[in-house]
């Protein structure tokens, strides 16, 4: 088999961050920061090249590690879908590192900066590996690597609050990965394969012969549950607000827009390549659909009740994760496409929101209650604009990413028909209304002048009216 030069890129994109992680730990803080910025730029470039070549021929290729063939070796599989998602995630990473640059120096002690760089590199590597891998167990190993790395990212600022949220994050995530590992082991014992294509063939065989169907459903259910916990689907979201709300801006942007979406992307890959999701007679999907719809509504309700901007943005993540799972739970191709699109749209919007919220907070004396944030957009106009655009995208103003993904979701729901359509459309409508309520409130707040001046103007107006 002859290979072109760009087909070696995926492995390079996984190994290079690992090497950078080792180098970073030996560097000084400032140099480490430059290394991670350069690294994420490199990832963007690599993913871009991959996307260009795979999309040009609309083809995918398999990279067999060490040239050991299919049933024994370890493989990477890269198609336009993987390249596009990878590009989206690396762009988010790049923006998050640059956008949180200033904040990072404040929150992370200078002598720990190199370690922060090191775990960011590990996370980058885990991102590339999970996007590209074609092997279930490799995926598990990198899930754990990204769990450890994100725990370090949350606890980076070494305050009591962040340490505690890191511990809670870790505990919930360990449960998630434990369930994932159990499901994986059961699946391996049933089929004897770990590579997605072989696994898929074995699963189809078992289902056609109607053998072991209950253990098979169980194993997929366990994996789905594990991913749901790790990506904070509604009833399992308890770790999320503290973790995202207390961490430094770069960390919360990276965690919310990259790490949690990575797990969902992996789940989509499993369903797409290994499980053949239409075979599942809607056993898992119906449960997922209800959780997702509940998440869309409840996440927004919680977001409305928050008094802090970052916590509100964090809670809105819960609602948005609900959207993504809603797409998956429809169990159709259109639903899957909507889910992937929403992963990308939401990644971009959420990173923007966290970073601009951070800037607004800096412009308001390091307070992020809504009362303190009044008029902050006038003090930091660019951040205010970015926040408004991100908020509009989440609400779904036409022309922005959020609108398109909602449109896709709705049309996928209509295609599914019946009760599912009713649930999807109702959840979309209610959630969008709630979104408007809290996003509009925050946008209005950041553009409004301080309270005192506000009231005095009001008084003058009234006086005029009286006069």
């Amino acid at each position, binding site marked *: 088999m002859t290979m072109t030069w760009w087909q070696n890129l995926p492995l390079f994109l996984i190994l290079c961050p690992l090497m950078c992680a080792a180098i970073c730990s030996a560097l000084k803080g400032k140099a480490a920061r430059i290394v991670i910025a350069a690294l994420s730029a490199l990832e963007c470039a690599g993913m871009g090249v991959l996307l260009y070549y795979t999309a040009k021929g609309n083809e995918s290729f398999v990279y067999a590690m060490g040239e050991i063939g299919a049933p024994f070796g370890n493989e990477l599989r890269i198609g336009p879908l993987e390249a596009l998602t990878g590009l989206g995630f690396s762009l988010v990473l790049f923006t998050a590192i640059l956008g949180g640059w200033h904040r990072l120096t404040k929150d992370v002690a200078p002598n720990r900066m190199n370690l922060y760089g090191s775990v960011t590199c590990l996370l980058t590597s885990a991102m590339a590996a999970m996007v590209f891998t074609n092997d279930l167990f490799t995926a598990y190993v990198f899930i754990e690597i990204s769990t450890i790395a994100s725990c370090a990212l949350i606890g980076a600022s070494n305050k009591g609050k962040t340490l505690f949220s890191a*511990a809670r994050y870790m505990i919930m995530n360990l449960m998630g990965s434990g369930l994932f590992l159990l499901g994986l082991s059961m699946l391996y014992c049933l089929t004897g394969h770990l590579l997605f294509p072989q696994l898929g063939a074995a699963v189809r065989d078992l289902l056609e012969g109607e053998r072991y169907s209950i253990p098979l459903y169980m194993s997929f259910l366990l994996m789905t549950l594990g991913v749901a916990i790790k990506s904070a689907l509604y009833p399992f979201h308890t770790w999320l607000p503290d973790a995202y709300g207390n961490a430094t801006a770069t960390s919360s942007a990276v965690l919310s827009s990259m790490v949690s979406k990575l797990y969902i992307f992996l789940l989509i890959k499993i369903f797409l390549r290994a499980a053949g999701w239409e075979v599942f007679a809607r056993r898992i999907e119906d449960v997922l659909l209800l959780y997702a719809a509940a998440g869309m509504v409840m996440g927004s309700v919680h977001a409305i009740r928050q008094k802090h901007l970052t916590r509100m943005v964090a809670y809105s993540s819960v609602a948005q994760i609900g959207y993504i799972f809603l797409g998956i739970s429809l169990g159709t191709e259109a639903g899957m496409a909507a889910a992937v699109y929403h992963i990308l749209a939401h990644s971009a919007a959420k990173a923007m929101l966290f970073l601009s919220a951070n800037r607004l907070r800096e412009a308001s004396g390091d307070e992020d209650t809504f009362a303190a944030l009044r008029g902050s957009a006038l003090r930091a106009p660019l951040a205010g604009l970015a926040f408004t655009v991100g908020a509009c995208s989440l609400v779904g103003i036409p022309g922005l990413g959020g609108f398109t993904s909602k449109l896709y979701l709705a049309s996928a729901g209509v295609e599914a028909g019946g009760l599912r359509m009713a649930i999807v459309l109702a959840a979309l409508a209610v959630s969008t209304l709630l979104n408007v309520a809290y996003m509009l409130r925050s946008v209005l707040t950041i553009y409004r002048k301080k309270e005192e001046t506000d009231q005095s103007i009001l008084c003058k107006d009234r006086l005029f009216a009286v006069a």
Partner: protein
Amino acid sequence: MEKLIYEHLDEVTALVLFGVGFTLLLVDKNLIKKIIGFSMMDSGIYLFLASYGYIESRLAPIYVNGNTNPDAYVNPLPAGLVLTGIVVGVSVTAVMLGLTVRLYQRYRTLDMDEIAERIRGEGK
């Protein structure tokens, strides 16, 4: 039912271990007990995998005495998975223990609820 349990003693033990560990991790307030729970949960899965990898009367997959018949050996992959799993588990436990030490140094307690309480007190 009893027969089923006896025939699949390994799997039943593995799942009981997993269940006990998972419950500890979920319910217990003590951080150290949570970590113990995590270790038990992982051990359950390793036992599950290892018991599938073991076939009676077959040899470990190491080439000896010129026996080239592949049916004489077990598949080495499950053992490899267990080893990888153990490495992952050890590093996760190390991170958790590190966090616990930090939290203990700061708050002098291992109780999650109490730590949450003290953090709330700090904020005021």
